[in-house]
């Protein structure tokens, strides 16, 4: 497409603007062509900001802070289209569900991917590590719905028949693991959702942890070894310390991913509107509520407004998590030292 040169703060022009005669940029001398490239791409680079602003504007416009009042932050969810006065649209159950599933999943994913990344970067021989790393990356490419259906078809029966009864009878004294066997139902519920989410987050966090472990200068690693540390001691005392900001950031970005995950969680979480009394119980998250209720929301304006407002809450949570995560990723307070590695010299 050809665009007219704009000041960059406005958006790609409408059809009127593009029909105006524009000097053909390609025939200009090199400097002109460079400018044409900048002019063409500058509006594009503003698009993300525009989208963000538009989404926030729609969320703010379509939600309704005044009508719901304090009950919006409460635990009661009674969407009653026939009696708006007694209806209640409380976000709390879903917010708790979102935070609970994500936090548990990210904790598990963090532990798994730190271990995985350490073995890929530090211990496995190069070719094998590359092949295994490829498989981890491939996991990231599996569509969410496939994880969901796999969780529902394969894992849920196993959870219902074997794993969860076993956990209940052996570890039932622990908080969240006991309760009535009714809670297990079909195997769908908090625990299954957490597990599926974990598997979905692990590829992302592993890749990020791997990168931050790789960023540890070889010279520091060698210094540790030269002091008589074993490889494992160097991993613990040099790598994990040097890369800790990167690892923290990886976990936060994983959390950002988990918070917004919808379809897979929807398929395995049981979708009950209540605080989960046990880890086996069905519950809901903000994302699963939205996807589950959205079709009926167009008939009931109050419900639609409530859902949009709840979506805004989710958006703000994920935005905050991502902003903090990225800050730690790029603000390389510890990574600024320029160190040259010794091994290249050794071969000289």
């Amino acid at each position, binding site marked *: 497409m050809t665009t007219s040169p704009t000041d960059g703060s406005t958006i790609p022009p409408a059809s009127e603007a593009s029909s105006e005669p524009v000097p053909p940029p390609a025939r200009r001398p090199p400097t002109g062509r460079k400018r044409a490239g900048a002019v063409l791409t500058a509006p594009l680079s503003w698009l993300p900001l525009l989208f963000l602003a538009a989404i926030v504007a729609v969320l703010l416009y379509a939600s309704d802070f005044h009508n719901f009042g304090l009950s919006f932050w409460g635990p009661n969810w009674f969407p009653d289209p026939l009696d708006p006065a007694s209806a209640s649209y409380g976000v709390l159950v879903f917010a708790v569900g979102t935070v609970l599933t994500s936090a548990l999943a990210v904790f598990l994913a963090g532990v798994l991917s730190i271990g995985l990344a350490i073995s890929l970067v530090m211990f496995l021989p190069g070719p094998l590590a590359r092949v295994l790393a490829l498989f981890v990356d491939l996991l990231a490419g599996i569509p969410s719905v496939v994880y969901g259906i796999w969780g529902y078809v394969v894992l849920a029966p196993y959870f219902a028949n074997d794993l969860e009864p076993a956990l209940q009878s052996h570890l039932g004294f622990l908080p969240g693991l006991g309760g009535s066997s009714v809670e297990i139902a079909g195997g769908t519920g908090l625990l299954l959702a957490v597990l599926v989410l974990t598997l979905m987050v692990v590829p992302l966090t592993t890749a990020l942890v791997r990168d931050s472990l790789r960023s540890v200068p070889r010279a520091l690693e060698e210094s540790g070894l030269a002091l*008589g540390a*074993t490889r494992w001691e160097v991993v613990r005392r040099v790598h994990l310390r040097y890369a800790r900001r990167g690892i923290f950031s990886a976990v936060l970005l994983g959390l950002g991913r988990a918070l917004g995950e919808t379809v897979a969680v929807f398929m395995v979480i049981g979708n009950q509107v209540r605080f989960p009394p046990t880890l086996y119980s069905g519950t809901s998250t903000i994302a699963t509520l939205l996807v589950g209720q959205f079709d009926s929301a167009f008939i009931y304006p109050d419900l639609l407004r409530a859902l949009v407002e709840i979506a805004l809450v989710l958006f703000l949570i994920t935005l905050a998590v991502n902003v903090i995560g990225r800050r730690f990723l790029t603000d390389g307070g510890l990574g600024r030292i320029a160190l040259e590695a010794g091994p290249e010299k050794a071969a000289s």
Partner: protein
Amino acid sequence: MSEPAAPEPAPVLSTEGLSVFAGSREILRRVSLAVPEKKITAVIGPSGCGKTTLIRAMNRMVELSPELRIEGTVRYRGRDIYAPEVSPVVVRRRIGMVFQRPTVFPQSIYENVAFGLRLDREEEDAVERTVVTSLRRAGLYEEVKEDLDRPALSLSGGQQQRLCIARALAVNPSVLLLDEATASLDPIATQKIEEMLRELKGEVSIVLVTHNIAQAARTSDVTAYLHQGRLIEMGATSELFEAPREKLTEAYITGRFG
């Protein structure tokens, strides 16, 4: 043991027919030399002559580069350090190393020096004593004693390098290998390190790889000259610099190439 050049009877460290290969390329060619106890041994030679590889072979750091293959023997007090029952971890505790550039850990001054001691889970007051002694031995204590909890990265380059030396000394090695340890430092910082090394040599045997010929002449007791992976000449520093036996050595120390 055929030792043509070593004046000392019982070397702390010796190599016999030591060769290192990178594929088919021979980086070190049958180097046999002896490092005398509690002296400073300088290893000089033009860049690419194998100096760094030689000292990296002396504490098994070469093993970290899987593309390198080692032949021959390295003995520490008579024991083959590459023998299958010998752990590289033990070797590196006896034979410490300081690198070309300061490699401080992103931690406090105190924790940097304590790194090797923490591996042994020593008592905290023993750690503290050793940290202070090591900083003194490396000639850094007076400059940093006010605040040992400062980040080590806030020190100057020369101070960081002395911190690395203190860190290596803290585990009490018998031999300290320095790989061009002053190459990235200014003359004043270099001078401080040279003075400190001369004081240290009563306690530790030092091997100093340097491309700075004047530094070798100033600092060392014994000098080895390497050329294209071969040991050309080794002897008392004064003799080697005043009356080199080999033409190559003479050409190098008089600056005809390098």
